[in-house]
């Protein structure tokens, strides 16, 4: 009998043992593991954005959400007395937090009581989101038992609006929304990792228990061609004069002639990526890339270079330029009434005669002129690939323009270019006719210093070196003999410039009675190194290109100083402007 009982018990135990050790083993192991181990998200940090000199323009930081356990703070209590005491204590704690964050303590308590009212076991509520390190440390030092913390990656822009329109910004969840942040997102983006570890009762990590399941990958850095100091100066100068002359918008592009690198691209109004909401949405991008407009007379440089390159004209070619031309289907005139001028091509540029340029422009076929425009990369977006970048527009049915457009396109009306494209035309002229790809980003720099995605460096010969040189010579005569000569002169340097005062569309297929004014130029003209191209939209207090003169002069002088360009030591050539 005893033996039977023993056998029965042993059998029972054996069955239970088998059940625990074999049948339920996996579930129980997993449950035990869950009890001991803590999964942890390892944050990958988004790459930074640097200027060409190593200044950080966009920086990844951690921000902290302060959260609370409403249940622990104001949850159900055993007696009303305890509840009242607990509420009073929570209120005191909330007052201490509010003193740091500047919130209303009643709002903090209300958020907690509301959460408990909705669910008596509520264990999660926000006290305040995205506070910086200082605030976080101060709240942490209060050592309030119902307060918890979560770190989040966020973005800060130390230089504010300096290059803000170019750098762009990210959204609340650190997602790229505009500018280089968006166009270079694949370089900058990080991916989070996870690890698990076991911890003891008091939260201490048990040695050797850490398992990294997914490694976090930090993003790479983006290096721009922009010089932050110059960028600031250009933005400041542009904004100052744009306000003085009542312009609605303005852009200044500074480009290096030999490389095609953009050294500064200023937009007015500018956006501070730290506070995007303070700027109208229409001003948050970069107009220099995204807002093509009819360039007007700065475009005559391209027509002149095309004429010389094709052998159809020289700087001394003669033309009769009346005030007005009314050919079949054509009605164009110069900006100010005058008798018929006997101009050379140089004189056409100096006087900015629309009629003279139209007559000379007819020496080339529309197809030839379109080919030159295309060679100068007009009608297509630049190599930068800026978010929302526009290609510009070369007129209806190009090159089968109607008669009016056929004439108008010789002097920059009837087609549109971006400020970047205009600067690029002058870059090619200044670089012996070799157009370099426009670049804003020098590359994506990995943690080990290797650069990828470097921009293309192969230029293309658009016009002959001789044609380019003669065009610069003509533009020097514009700078020295034109009506703005005294206001743009920089002592010691030869400069080559061309102004533009362009009508712009009123949006209904007609021209508005306001103007976009511009000035583009090269210095030092004997060996051009820098392009500065200025545009102002509708400057109501000075409705001509004179508004752009002080901006051009101050920016160009700053460029020559900052990059230590040696003064010219020679004078500009003197080319006859009339006959």
């Amino acid at each position, binding site marked *: 009998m005893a033996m039977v009982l023993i056998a029965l018990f042993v059998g029972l135990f054996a069955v239970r043992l088998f059940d625990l050790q074999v049948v339920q083993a996996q579930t129980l192991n997993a449950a035990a593991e869950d009890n001991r181990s803590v999964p942890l998200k390892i944050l990958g940090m988004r790459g930074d954005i640097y200027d060409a000199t190593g200044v950080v323009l966009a920086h990844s930081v951690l921000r902290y959400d302060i959260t609370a356990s409403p249940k622990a703070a104001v949850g159900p209590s055993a007696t009303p007395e305890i509840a009242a005491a607990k509420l009073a204590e929570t209120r005191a704690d909330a007052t201490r937090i509010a003193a740091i964050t500047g919130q209303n303590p009643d709002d903090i308590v209300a958020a907690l009581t509301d959460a408990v009212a909705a669910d008596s076991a509520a264990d999660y509520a926000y006290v305040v989101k995205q506070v910086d390190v200082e605030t976080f440390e101060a709240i942490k030092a209060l050592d309030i038992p119902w307060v918890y913390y979560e770190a989040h990656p966020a973005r800060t822009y130390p230089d*504010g*609006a300096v290059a803000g329109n170019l750098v762009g910004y990210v959204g609340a969840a650190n997602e790229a929304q505009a500018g280089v942040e968006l166009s270079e997102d694949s370089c900058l983006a990080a991916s989070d990792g996870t690890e698990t570890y076991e911890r003891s009762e008091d939260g201490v990590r048990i040695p050797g228990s850490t398992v990294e399941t997914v490694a976090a990958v930090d993003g790479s850095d983006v290096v721009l061609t922009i010089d932050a100091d110059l960028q*600031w*100066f250009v933005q400041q100068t542009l904004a100052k004069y744009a306000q003085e002359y009542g312009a609605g918008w303005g852009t200044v592009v500074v480009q290096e002639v030999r490389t095609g690198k953009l050294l500064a691209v200023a937009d007015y109004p500018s956006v501070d990526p730290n506070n995007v909401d303070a700027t109208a949405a229409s001003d948050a991008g970069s107009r220099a890339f995204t807002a093509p407009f009819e360039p007007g007379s700065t475009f005559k440089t391209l027509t002149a270079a095309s004429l010389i390159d094709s052998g159809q004209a020289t700087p001394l070619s003669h033309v009769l330029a009346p005030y007005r031309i009314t050919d079949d289907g054509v009605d164009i005139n110069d900006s100010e009434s005058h008798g018929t001028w006997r101009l050379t091509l140089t004189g056409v540029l100096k006087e900015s005669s629309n009629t003279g340029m139209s007559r000379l422009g007819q020496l080339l076929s529309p197809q030839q002129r379109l080919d030159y425009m295309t060679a100068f990369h007009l009608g297509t977006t630049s190599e930068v690939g800026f978010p929302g970048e526009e290609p510009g527009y070369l007129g209806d049915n190009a090159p089968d323009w109607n008669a009016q457009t056929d004439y108008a396109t010789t002097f920059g009306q009837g087609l549109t270019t971006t400020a970047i494209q205009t600067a690029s035309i002058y870059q090619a002229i200044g670089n012996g006719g070799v157009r370099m790809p426009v670049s804003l980003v020098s590359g994506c720099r990995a943690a080990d210093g290797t650069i990828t995605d470097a921009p293309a460096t192969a230029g293309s010969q658009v016009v002959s070196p001789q044609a380019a040189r003669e065009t610069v010579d003509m533009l020097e005569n514009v700078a020295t003999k034109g009506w703005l000569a005294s206001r743009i002169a920089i002592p010691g340097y030869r400069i080559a410039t061309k102004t533009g005062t362009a009508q712009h569309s009123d949006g209904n297929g007609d021209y508005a009675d306001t103007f976009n004014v511009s000035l583009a130029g090269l210095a030092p003209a004997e060996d051009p190194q820098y392009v500065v191209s200025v545009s102002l939209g509708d400057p109501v207090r000075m409705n001509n290109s004179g508004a752009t003169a002080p901006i051009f002069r101050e920016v160009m002088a700053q460029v020559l100083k900052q990059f230590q360009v040696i003064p010219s030591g020679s004078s500009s050539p003197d080319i006859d402007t009339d006959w």
Partner: protein
Amino acid sequence: MSSSVAYSPVRRPLGAFGQTGPALGASASGPASASASVASGVAVDLPGLDTLLDPFVQPIRRISIVAARANRRARPKVFYAAVIVAGLGVVMLSQLMMSIALSDGAYTINRLMSDQKSQARSIQALTEELGTLSSPQNLAANAESLGMVQNTNPVWLRMSDGAVIGTPTAAAPGTGAIGAAGSQVPNELLTGIPLVTGQ
């Protein structure tokens, strides 16, 4: 070969189980059982040699010296037990010590990790502050407030012949890059940071 065969019956009292070949030249063609009997015969005949060769396997001694053996074996037993218990003790003690050292290390690691975190936070806060303070807007505004005005009318001195290029003009207060217009390049981060002259 022949000598090894000769002693093997002695070292293996069970005889035949270990036997692999005929023993000592006697009736070489006999069966296994015959060899066993020959083997025991040899053991009895050569007690001295046997003792020399293998003192521990000694059927003759087991029979003869009872009391003496009991005494002799009691002492090693206590000794071994003591050694084992002491060994166990040492093992357990060192395990305890290691465990203490490990958890002490765990707390040290924990403390250092939280130190590292808080230092990283300090670095971040200071880097942010430095970045903001070194922003061009802030530097330019401070410089102008201290009376350093950038002259918009640059003049050059040519080293080769000492020529002055341009007309030197003093920069009047308020004509600098910021000047009367004020800073036009906003930076939200500079809110609440006073100029050095305003402190």
